[in-house]
């Protein structure tokens, strides 16, 4: 057995807790999780059944933590998890799982399958069976602070452009500001209009806010690849920045997994609660709406629809805010089939969009989203995650669908005078 495999198996033993044991003990092989997974429904290949993706973890559980499994192991009757097997499982655990959590909502016995996939990735990564795309993104995050290698000078350049466009100053490193705004590299490079939208909204609301030169990147590839040590370092940078500037609230940008990594995983990664609050930008905007600080004028008359980012709605709990906000500016808003907490994933979450080898499968899985969108007839698709947005745009281009994609924050800012 290789040293890396030994370490990976040790990690798998460590991450097995009572919920994992309870979930494996409850599975009756009903296969309903497959019907909830876009990689199965759009390919018809049973190997994409979510519970099957967990087979290496199940075997470690059975062989190490059950009486019958230990007996079988002692008698040499059990099949050990091998490097070859983990290599075969890599596309199942990474390429074909966006951690979207639909399976966890559908399982009749209550298994939170994504909870277990996240744990299996811990062992897979340590054993050296994570995809190159995610390994590279994690390395760049540690070295440069960004999975895309975006450094402070790139942000400064975008700040200058946005300031020139809006005429509003973008505050940087302001101690004691109420809000610290984070961004994703995707927004800095591809969608800088998000920053302009935030500055416009904050100005109207009369709130103090700042960017932090030492912690402006919100995304966390450590969570996606499944290496808690990396995830902890990346969250730690944000915590250090927020505590140094003594801000009251850190705002997670329009990025689903950045939100769950910071809001829900972060305190557990650093081992203590934060000294500040964490809100997604849509939560902040909805609070402004309730307080009368967000005033919009005019409506979008064209039919538009909303894509709920999985990490925001299903894994994050931000359910009502986007709809409250959309009603302020859209007169012809339509829901897609299965919208809200059962929405179908864009196909690129959980790090899948960084895996080159997964591209063809991602486009195949997009067919369910394509059908959802076609049913509405909408020509504008609003979302609240920059990663969803780029994945949606790529897939819409692939299928030659003429639908515009826009971020909700940006849409709202367009209706501020």
């Amino acid at each position, binding site marked *: 057995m290789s040293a890396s495999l030994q370490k990976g198996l040790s990690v798998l033993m460590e991450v097995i807790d009572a919920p994992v044991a309870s979930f494996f003990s409850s599975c009756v092989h009903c296969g309903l999780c497959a019907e909830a997974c876009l990689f199965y429904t759009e390919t018809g290949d049973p190997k994409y059944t979510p519970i*099957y993706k967990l087979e290496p973890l199940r075997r470690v559980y059975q062989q190490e933590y059950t*009486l019958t499994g230990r007996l079988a192991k002692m008698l040499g009757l059990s099949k050990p998890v091998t490097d070859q097997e983990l290599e075969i499982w890599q596309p199942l655990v990474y390429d074909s799982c966006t951690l979207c959590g639909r399976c966890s909502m559908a399982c009749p016995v209550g298994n939170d399958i994504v909870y277990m996939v996240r744990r299996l990735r811990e062992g897979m990564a340590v054993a050296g069976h994570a995809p190159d795309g995610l390994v590279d993104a994690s390395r760049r995050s540690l070295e440069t602070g960004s999975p895309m290698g975006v450094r402070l000078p790139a942000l400064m350049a975008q700040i200058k452009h946005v300031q020139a466009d809006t005429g509003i100053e973008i505050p940087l490193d302001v101690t004691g500001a109420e809000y610290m705004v984070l961004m994703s590299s995707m927004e800095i490079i591809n969608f800088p209009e998000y920053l302009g939208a935030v500055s416009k909204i904050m100005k109207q609301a009369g709130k103090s806010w700042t960017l932090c030169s030492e912690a402006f990147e919100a995304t966390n590839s450590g969570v996606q690849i499944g290496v808690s040590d990396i995830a902890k370092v990346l969250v730690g940078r944000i915590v250090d920045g927020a505590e140094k500037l003594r801000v009251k609230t850190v705002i997670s940008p329009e990025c689903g997994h950045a939100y769950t990594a910071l809001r829900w995983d972060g305190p557990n990664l650093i081992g203590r609660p934060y000294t500040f609050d964490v809100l997604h930008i849509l939560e902040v905007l909805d609070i402004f709406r309730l307080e009368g600080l967000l005033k919009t004028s005019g409506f979008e008359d064209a039919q538009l629809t909303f894509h709920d980012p999985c990490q925001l709605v299903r894994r994050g709990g931000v359910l009502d805010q986007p709809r409250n906000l959309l009603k302020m500016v859209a007169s012809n808003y339509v829901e897609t089939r*299965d919208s809200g907490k059962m929405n179908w994933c864009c196909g690129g979450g959980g790090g899948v969009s960084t895996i080159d080898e997964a591209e063809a499968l991602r486009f195949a899985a997009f067919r369910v989203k394509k059908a959802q969108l076609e049913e509405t007839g909408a020509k504008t698709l609003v979302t609240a995650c920059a990663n969803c947005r780029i994945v949606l745009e790529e897939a819409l281009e692939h299928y030659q669908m003429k639908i515009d994609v826009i971020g909700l924050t940006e849409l709202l800012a367009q209706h501020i005078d």
Partner: protein
Amino acid sequence: MNEVLLLTWVRSTGLSIATGIFVLGTLWRLIEIYTLGRKPDLSVPRHRAAASGLHTLFRRSLPAPGMFIRASASYLAGYVFHTGLFIVVLLFAPHIMLMQSLTALSWQGLPSQFIDATAVLTLAAMLLVLVDRINNPVKRFLSTFEDYAAWALTFLPLLTGYLASRHLLLSYTTMLALHISSVELLLIFLPFTKLMHAFTLWISRWYNGDINGHKGVPS
């Protein structure tokens, strides 16, 4: 061993052994699973009505939105055979008398004609479940020997119980002995197979609801 001796043995020694293995095995499995514990969640919870372990414990008895249409046969056959088993096991007068002799607890049963009809319906639903397991590509792919064994361990007590109560195929004494034997086999294997879900699913649902309810997601 003649049929009377066999019936006497399965009703006394056999039942004691099976019950002992069932009780100790189930306790062992529950301890084995739940003493693994879990770390406390240090993130600040988001409170939302209808998002909690308790809500999910009940809610998971219904299909998630959009799921019924995708797997109607699985849901319908599942409901029929689980409900049927519940009725036949707990509301058949001879079963209630057995419970009373063991626990001193008693309750009102249902007429035997109704129990007979329920048993037939449950047997049919279980056969449908088996056919579906063989025909459905996902279920066939996932299925191991244990899945088919668990099906047989559940089906046999129902079948032999029905045949005994209707005095079919074999003598009543022999069929009753086979019925009790099959129940004992079920009891012996339940803690060590997927049949253990009868106990763990409630806690799994609660975990799911608690983990997601912490984030304000009604799961």
